[in-house]
């Protein structure tokens, strides 16, 4: 058993915390983009994912992803409950349990990413059910395929920090759910402008910050690969911000803050699979391409008429595809390993072909299974909120709260409240009638 490397262990401990922060960051990023009447539900989908997926990961998720391989398809259940790991090994110099904790954060955010496609209109209970089923049937096995010794890893597909396993995976599921749930009331005729752009920028900033743990932490050690990943993550993201806003400037006439924030995330997504395999100039090229193409890809939903509300498909699926495929062009052999030079660096077409296999496999599998799960939920317990509740606002309908209470006349002690406008406390009567709203909820 390798000895424990305290430098590596300290860095992965830190990285795990950084990656956790990405999910609340995502909640802010997504939450700011919704309308003010649905920001809480948007953020709850992320926090719900933190709660549920963390536990599933311990129960069996880690074991399916990283347990003993069964036929290249799944891990076994030998590590279910993380039992037997308390005193177990220090693979690569860090405790196995730390690796399990670091990877837990990836599972959480991958599930949370999907929620952006179904803003304003998905009932919360069914969302949690979907999150649990999708994590179980899609994320855990796909993480095994890509990182846990499964068939994609064995093929030699390169995915350093999650272009396929995280972003294409979540993006394809997002597309499936957007199709299952359908368009929001008024879309695409009405304008669905973000209600709080400073919040979007704060969320993008937290994602960017946490992403250093995501990418550089994926080196699994405090080493050269971590350093390459860190600088590449920074410059690819910077380039993507510029790439996105330039496209916007030319197409729409003005560069927007939403574009800058989306460009940053597109760059982060794009560099994720490739961050340890490129030179910084390659990372800049990748970032520019990811930013520009993802900016163009947000137009797809208007042409094809699917309401991917917060552009999860355009940013995560498309960005993940770009990053995964560009490895085939831009990888450098000394970083990516013997025989893994990209097309522009004297390599052949083989690596690009392998990358394409990884992309297509994860995309198709995730889309199909997500569609089936989503469709089954919609047809049984119902996934989509009623149109009435959607128009009134999902925050109040699903969570009995609203994000912003600004009125000086409303609220406790306010003039409206005193006059009986809004709710005031009344002694609860014994329920006589069946509370139909609640049951139907």
């Amino acid at each position, binding site marked *: 058993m390798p000895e424990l490397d305290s430098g590596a262990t300290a860095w992965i401990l830190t990285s795990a915390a950084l990656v956790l922060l990405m999910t609340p960051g995502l909640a802010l990023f997504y939450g700011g983009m919704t309308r003010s009447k649905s920001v809480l539900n948007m953020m709850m989908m992320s926090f719900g994912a933190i709660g549920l997926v963390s536990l599933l990961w311990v129960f069996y998720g880690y074991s399916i992803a990283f347990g003993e391989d069964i036929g290249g398809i799944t891990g076994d259940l030998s590590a279910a409950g993380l039992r037997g790991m308390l005193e177990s090994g220090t693979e690569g110099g860090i405790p196995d349990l730390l690796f399990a904790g670091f990877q837990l954060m990836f599972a959480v955010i991958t599930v949370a990413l999907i929620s952006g496609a179904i803003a304003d209109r998905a009932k919360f209970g069914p969302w949690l059910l979907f999150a649990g089923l999708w994590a179980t049937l899609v994320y855990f096995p796909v993480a095994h395929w890509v990182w846990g010794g499964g068939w994609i890893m064995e093929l030699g597909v390169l995915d350093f920090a999650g272009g396929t396993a995280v972003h294409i995976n979540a993006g394809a599921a997002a597309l499936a759910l957007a199709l299952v749930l359908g368009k929001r009331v008024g879309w*695409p005729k*009405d*304008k669905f*402008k973000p209600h709080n752009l400073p919040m979007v920028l704060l969320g993008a900033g937290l994602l960017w910050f946490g992403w250093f743990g995501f990418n550089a932490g994926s080196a699994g050690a405090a080493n050269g690969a971590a350093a390459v990943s860190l600088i590449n993550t920074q410059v690819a993201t910077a380039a993507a911000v510029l790439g996105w806003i330039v496209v*916007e400037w030319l*197409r*729409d*006439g003005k560069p*927007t803050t*939403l*574009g800058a924030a989306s460009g940053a995330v597109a760059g982060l997504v794009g560099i994720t699979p490739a961050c340890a395999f490129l030179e910084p100039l390659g990372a800049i090229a990748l970032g520019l391409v990811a930013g520009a193409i993802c*900016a*163009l890809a*947000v*137009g797809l939903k*208007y042409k094809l008429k699917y309401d991917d509300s917060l552009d999860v498909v355009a940013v995560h699926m498309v960005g993940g595809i770009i990053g995964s495929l560009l490895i085939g062009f831009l990888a450098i052999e000394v970083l990516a390993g013997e025989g893994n030079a990209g097309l522009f660096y004297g390599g052949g077409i083989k690596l690009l072909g392998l990358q394409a296999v990884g992309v297509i496999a994860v995309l198709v599998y995730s889309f199909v299974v997500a569609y089936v799960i989503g469709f089954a939920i919609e047809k049984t317990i119902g996934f989509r909120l009623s149109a009435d509740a959607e128009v009134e606002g999902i925050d109040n309908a699903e969570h009995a709260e609203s994000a912003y209470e600004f009125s000086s006349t409303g609220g406790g002690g306010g003039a409206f409240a005193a006059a009986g406008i809004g709710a005031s406390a009344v002694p609860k009567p014994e329920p006589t009638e069946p509370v139909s709203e609640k049951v139907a909820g």
Partner: protein
Amino acid sequence: MKLVTAVIKPHQLDAVKEALHTLGVAGLTVSEVQGYGRQKGHTEVYRGAEYTVEFLPKIRVEVLTDEIDVEKIVDAVVAAARTGKIGDGKVWVTAVEEVVRVRTGERGLDAL
């Protein structure tokens, strides 16, 4: 007694207020409203999609006055609100049957 109601461009509010102040108008009420007239709305492009904005933000100004001052007030509001571009708004006058000052109970012209 008359009620002068003006729907104006938001940017002209300050000029209208100053003009009324100069005339010695003692009080007015303003509210944010949305609407369109002959200029209709316009189209906007955001994040690659084009939208029609039908209702534009306007300010409604309301002034209570007597029969003598009403013409001067209308003229002052129109002059102050005009930019010469489409969408400058409208001013209209309606008859008011009764006015009461809440604090004192004064009625009619005394309440103005």
